[in-house]
């Protein structure tokens, strides 16, 4: 064996070992992603060009009929496309002052406790909390209280308002946290400088605070938006099967009408819509805040 090839061989070996380690590190995630993300996606893509079997379920075919039928769920898509941004916006309007207070106004020693109080609701099942709202908004809750003061027969539950309230309630912490993080990182000297230069508190807020917290706002907004696009529980419990999101239409197609192909077509469409929404959110946030990308975490 020529002496000169020894280092090359060892280098090749170490390169091989390096690649092996890399492959081993990536393999579990890769397998997971392929088996539980790519494969299911391929499966519903195949199903979406199939037909409903006579007794329900799936029957192999090659047709675009399911996609052609999408307008039959136009209202559900429309509800989702209206109520998801509306919900995210309402969430933002409630969350921003809270995050602002926590990050910039609350006394230092209270800050952690208050933050913990924001997170703790996450630890009680969202279902239970939403059920509590069913009670509060239902006939024995607020309407019963109002009946005492003479306001009779008020109906709160099963209205779009109730769904919106449930959305704000459920997703508020998810909106507060990213905004809090971006406000907390804010360099306070900027605020002082702005005030020193004679800016009013309002213009300081608009030109410094709000501007610099935009990445947090966009993160929270897109996070809530994306989750809302697939929402099922809140409309089910607080909307009484009347306020239908696309997620509800989807579940309905699998659990009641047993039309798997059409459900698959809707699922694919929903994924595409989600991706588009995220890309648009990214664009907007990039334009608003220079070069910052929206991270979902």
């Amino acid at each position, binding site marked *: 064996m020529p002496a000169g090839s020894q280092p090359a061989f060892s280098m090749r070996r170490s390169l091989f070992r390096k690649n092996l380690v890399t492959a081993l590190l990536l393999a579990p995630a890769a397998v997971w992603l392929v088996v539980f993300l790519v494969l*299911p996606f*391929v499966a519903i893509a195949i199903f979406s060009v199939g037909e409903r079997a006579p007794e329900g379920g799936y029957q192999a075919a090659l047709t675009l009929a399911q996609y052609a039928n999408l307008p039959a769920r136009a209202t559900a898509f429309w509800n989702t496309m209206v109520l998801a941004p509306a919900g995210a916006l309402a969430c933002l309007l409630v969350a921003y002052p809270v995050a602002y207070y926590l990050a910039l106004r609350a006394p230092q020693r209270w800050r952690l406790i208050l933050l913990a109080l924001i997170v703790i609701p996450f630890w009680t099942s969202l279902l239970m909390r939403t059920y509590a709202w069913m009670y*509060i908004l239902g006939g024995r809750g607020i309407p019963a209280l109002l009946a005492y003061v003479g306001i009779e027969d008020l109906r709160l539950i099963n209205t779009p308002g109730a769904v919106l309230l449930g959305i704000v309630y459920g997703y508020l912490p998810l909106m507060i946290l990213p905004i809090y993080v971006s406000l907390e990182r804010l360099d306070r000297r900027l605020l002082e400088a702005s005030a020193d230069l004679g800016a009013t508190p309002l213009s300081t807020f608009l030109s410094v605070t709000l501007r610099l917290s935009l990445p947090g706002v966009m993160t929270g907004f897109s996070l809530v938006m*994306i989750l809302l696009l697939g929402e099922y529980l809140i409309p089910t419990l607080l909307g009484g099967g009347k306020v239908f999101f696309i997620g509800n239409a989807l579940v309905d197609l699998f659990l009641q009408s047993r039309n798997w192909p059409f459900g698959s077509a809707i699922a694919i469409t929903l*994924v595409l819509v989600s991706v588009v929404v995220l890309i648009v959110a990214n664009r907007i946030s990039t334009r608003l805040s220079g070069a910052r990308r929206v991270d979902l*975490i």
Partner: protein
Amino acid sequence: MRAFVVAVFAFLYLPIALVVLFSFNAGHHASEFTGFSAQWYGKALSNPFLVEALKNSLFIATTSALLAAFCGTAAALGLQRVGTRTRALFDALLGAAIVVPGVVIGISTLVALVQLFAVVNPFLASLWPTDQPPRLSLGYGSIIAAHGLFSMALVTMIVGTRLSSLDRNLVEASSDLYATPLTTFRSIVLPQIMPAIIAGFLLAFTFSFDDFIIAFFVAGAQTTLPIYVFASIRRGVTPEINAIATIVLCASVLLVLLAQWQLGRRKPSP
């Protein structure tokens, strides 16, 4: 502004207060308060279905979060060592795992697994020597995998962000001092990314523990706590459910306090 913040906190805690209050209801329904009693705590803890649902949820959340933390961290480390094209592919898939709505994950996993089992089970049966071949079916495995998908993507991103802000000089200094890569990893990299891994684990656990819609589709005959609660809402909630929810709440608050106390002990000033 203070008043507004106080109002928001009241809004956040009103339903929780109700959940806790009704757990002490003497009556049979979670909709009419008829007097104080702690009987439902005993009933809840002796209801085999409720206890099993709680155990299942704890087991599934722990396992999927552990797997996600492990595989996610490994993937984040691996992604540091690959070319841009592989990286972009992984990033796209991980992003998709986070963005695809839970309801779609649940349904597509169900569809894929049902088809897969339809092929694999007869195959296993034909190979198996005895009359009782193993049968793959929906259950713990499918819930853990479906929950873990989202969690793993989350961990990979959190740890990845942390890794990219890691001090390169330390790593290089370590290898200059002839530390093996493993030693460098153990003594330099791991301590720095540990907070990110823990954060990822906790997020993953919380997500899995509270998830309804994915489990609803892929659980098969298994019940998780959210599935049990959903079924109870349909058949009429008894204060048992409130009792379990209260126990879970108290346990998690205790854990948070414990964690705070531990952190406070380790480093006096944050």
